[in-house]
């Protein structure tokens, strides 16, 4: 492993070598990292004033998926652990939320929280193999797990108010979305609610990465041995990362369960997790903004292309070409590229100001 890393150090282009070198700088600017989720949230809250009901629904889904992407970005981008089961986890979150909601006993926010706790605990269980596996193995095992979960869900279906533990009634028709909170009954209000919750998830992730766990994760990512030698409880922090990622994804799943349309198994095929990874790699794995972009790419871009009359087959092709293209030409992804360009622009502006 070391040899490989040394090898890369010697030859890879600068930005490929240190995709996260920027994080070090960001750590020392406590505010800037929190500014943009706040900015995004504010913008998103204003958005409904300008867009149609259709786009509000689309963007609600995009927000949810950006949190799923965020989970992956924490796991892979920060700790170096790969989970190709994020979409299945989203499904599990959705299932749990619908089931919890069906009891009618909990207020919505508590359903969200409880779902997060449930998926977080599941995350710890999934994290156990991650203690021993790394790289492609972990990726593939989680993909297998996702495939298995999907088959189970195909057989159990999503709860629709039926009896028993599964809460599924085969005779009843239609999807049954999770009941929304009273403050967010309409689509617009629910969009705002979703954006706020998603922004909270981003803040949670940022708080983690900027604190003690973030530094521990950075150490683990580079070398587990070095991390142990530095006194880091690798087991704890790996499980913590999984729990956090699954907590966030579970909450997202719960949000999805209450969005327009409800849930069906079809929307969580295992290969979608690979697509999520692809979108995130394209968007930028090492910047949290990348997760937002990934969510938009997965849910809003198809809608956009559709309004332009592009067929879904073309969308697949465009997505495929785009994926390869960004992986080859800009390893830090769209978000990384963007922030670099912005930084360069900022520098130029500053120079101009000082010289004038």
């Amino acid at each position, binding site marked *: *492993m070391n*040899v490989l890393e040394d090898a890369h150090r*010697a*030859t890879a282009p*600068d930005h490929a070598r240190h995709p996260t070198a920027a994080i070090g700088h960001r750590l020392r600017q406590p505010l800037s990292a929190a500014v943009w989720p706040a900015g995004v949230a504010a913008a998103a809250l204003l958005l409904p004033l300008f867009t149609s009901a259709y786009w509000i629904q689309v963007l609600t889904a995009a927000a949810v998926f950006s949190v799923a992407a965020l989970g992956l970005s924490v796991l892979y981008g920060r700790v170096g652990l790969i989970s190709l089961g994020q979409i299945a986890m989203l499904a599990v979150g959705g299932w749990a939320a619908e089931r919890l909601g069906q009891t009618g006993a909990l207020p919505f926010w508590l359903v969200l929280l409880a779902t997060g706790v449930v998926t977080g605990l599941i995350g710890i269980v999934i994290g156990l193999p991650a203690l021993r596996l790394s790289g492609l193995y972990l990726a593939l095992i989680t993909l297998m797990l996702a495939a298995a979960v999907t088959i189970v869900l195909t057989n159990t279906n999503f709860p629709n108010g039926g009896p028993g533990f599964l809460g599924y009634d085969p005779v009843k028709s239609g999807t049954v979305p999770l009941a929304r909170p009273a403050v967010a009954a309409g689509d617009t209000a629910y969009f705002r609610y979703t954006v706020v919750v998603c922004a909270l998830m981003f803040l949670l992730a940022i708080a983690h990465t900027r604190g003690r766990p973030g530094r521990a994760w950075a150490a683990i990512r580079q070398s587990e041995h070095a991390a142990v030698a530095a006194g880091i409880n690798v087991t704890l922090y790996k499980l913590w990362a999984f729990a956090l990622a699954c907590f966030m994804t579970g909450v997202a799943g719960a949000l999805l369960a209450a969005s327009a349309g409800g849930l069906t198994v079809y929307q969580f095929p295992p290969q979608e997790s690979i697509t999520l990874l692809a979108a995130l790699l394209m968007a930028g794995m090492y910047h949290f903004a990348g997760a937002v972009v990934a969510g938009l790419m997965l849910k809003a871009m198809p809608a956009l292309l559709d309004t332009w009359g592009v067929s879904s087959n073309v969308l697949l092709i465009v997505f495929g070409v785009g994926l390869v293209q960004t992986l080859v030409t800009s390893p830090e992804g769209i978000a990384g590229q963007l922030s670099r360009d912005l930084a360069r622009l900022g520098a130029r502006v500053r120079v101009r100001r000082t010289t004038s």
Partner: protein
Amino acid sequence: MTVTTAPALHVEGLRVARGTRTVLHDVRLDIPAGEVTALLGPNGAGKSTLVLALGGVLRPTGGRLLLGERELTGRRPEKVRAAGVAVVPEGRRLLPSLTVRDNLHAAVYALGRESRRAGVEYALELFPELRQRWHIPARALSGGQQQMVVLAQALASRPSVLVVDELSLGLAPVVVKRLMPVLADVAAAGTAVLLIEQFAHVALALATTAHILEGGRIRFSGTAQELKDNPDKLSAAYLLRTNAEDSPS
């Protein structure tokens, strides 16, 4: 590969950038056949960068690399290697998941069938330690054993130019001592050898000519004897850097 015909490697005005920064400025260097040339210099001087450029891994932004009359500038690593220039970069770069055996076999791939076997035999004579580790993946080797593998890889293929970055890295003194006459022999057989070595005394003991690289420029070129006789010339190069650091850039 006789003493008379072996070509020398000429480095002319080489300029190499890493990232956005130019790390080597107009480096001029001859590596003549039949002798060992030493390259010394402090950390960060650009020695390893030069080695990578010689190996074709880094593309120079200016200058030329010539093997005798042959143009090597901008050639890809495998072409450079095929031309007879074997480069051992720093950092024990081997094929980590392949066994020691396969590491050596991969190194002699470009040779003919007969010379392949002979090359591997030769490498094993030099590093008999590797025999016991024959079927172990290279990543499981100790640091010194890995260094032996990369040296064996270079020597097994009988190059006409041999460039070694940090020859003795992690090697036990006894191994270094065993290697010194080997390198002298290799050079004597007509190979041009460029040696980068942390222990100046080892490098100077082998070398005929020595160069000091500092801050990406050649600061001294002369005989090895001259440096042996005047160790302060060496320290001067290092001091130069300390001064450079103090002055604002």
